[in-house]
């Protein structure tokens, strides 16, 4: 059973290996000639003022919330796709109804200007 997930394990191992390899060897092999200008967070541009942990505007949050809701919609598509052939036209129609209801929501969001950046 679990043998199916061995490729996922390989992918995980290679991803970790690649990240560690790249950081570790660039740290080991790269020359380190540091001077104050180089060590500054921003070598070009303005020097940062005040704390760097600034609160972000609330308008990002609405985008995140809407993403969460449509993400949940996508979750339902997954088992539907697996059994799609078995369900046939019936399954297609019921998913279209499901998507239509959420499409109404999407049009509402759009018309209301919730996706506008203001």
């Amino acid at each position: 059973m679990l043998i199916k997930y061995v490729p996922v394990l390989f992918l995980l191992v290679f991803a970790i290996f690649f990240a560690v390899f790249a950081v570790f060897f660039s740290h080991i092999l790269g020359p380190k000639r540091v001077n104050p200008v180089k060590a500054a967070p921003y070598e070009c541009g303005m020097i940062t003022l005040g704390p760097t942990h600034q609160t972000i505007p609330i308008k990002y949050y609405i985008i995140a919330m809407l993403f969460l809701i449509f993400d949940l919609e996508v979750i339902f598509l997954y088992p539907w796709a697996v059994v799609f052939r078995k369900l046939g036209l019936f399954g297609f129609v019921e998913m279209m109804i499901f998507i239509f209801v959420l499409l109404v929501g999407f049009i509402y969001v759009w018309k209301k200007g919730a996706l506008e950046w203001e």
Partner: protein
Amino acid sequence: MIPGTLFYWIAFIFTALTAIFAAVMVITRRNPIHSAMFLILNFLCIAVLYLLLNSQFIAIIQVMVYAGAIMMLVIFVIMLLSVEEEKRTYKIRLSPAKVIGVLLVVILFAQLIYGVAQKVVPGEWGEFTPERIAQIGEIKAVGGLLFTRYLFPFEVASILLLVGIIGAVILSKKER
């Protein structure tokens, strides 16, 4: 999945230990963003545990919804609040709430251990036993039921999501 193979146990123990390690890191980090990152690691480990229990669908939900979308919201909340002050006023103090909390946790763990140690599961077995699920695959089982027998709740779920969308817009958007 009937446990028993060596690979299964290695995978389980490794994932479980990583999950516990991540959970401990979540509550001990001072920087909330670091805590959030370890919480993602914890969620991913739990997704693997679901896979080991043959619940592919819940594992996918765990990765996509919890590790993806919910954690994004958590990180947004951390960034919306000013965390700088919280970091400075960090101190361990004994309070009645903590004592009661620890007591409740001990009781909960005792119940969990009792429940696991009790080998016989009370109640009836349904149509979909673990063996059956392992045979047909969980997503197929869920899909087959969700789009036929539980069609109505499924369509109602879309209304629920619609209400969520409208609520999110109304609460966060000013009238122009």
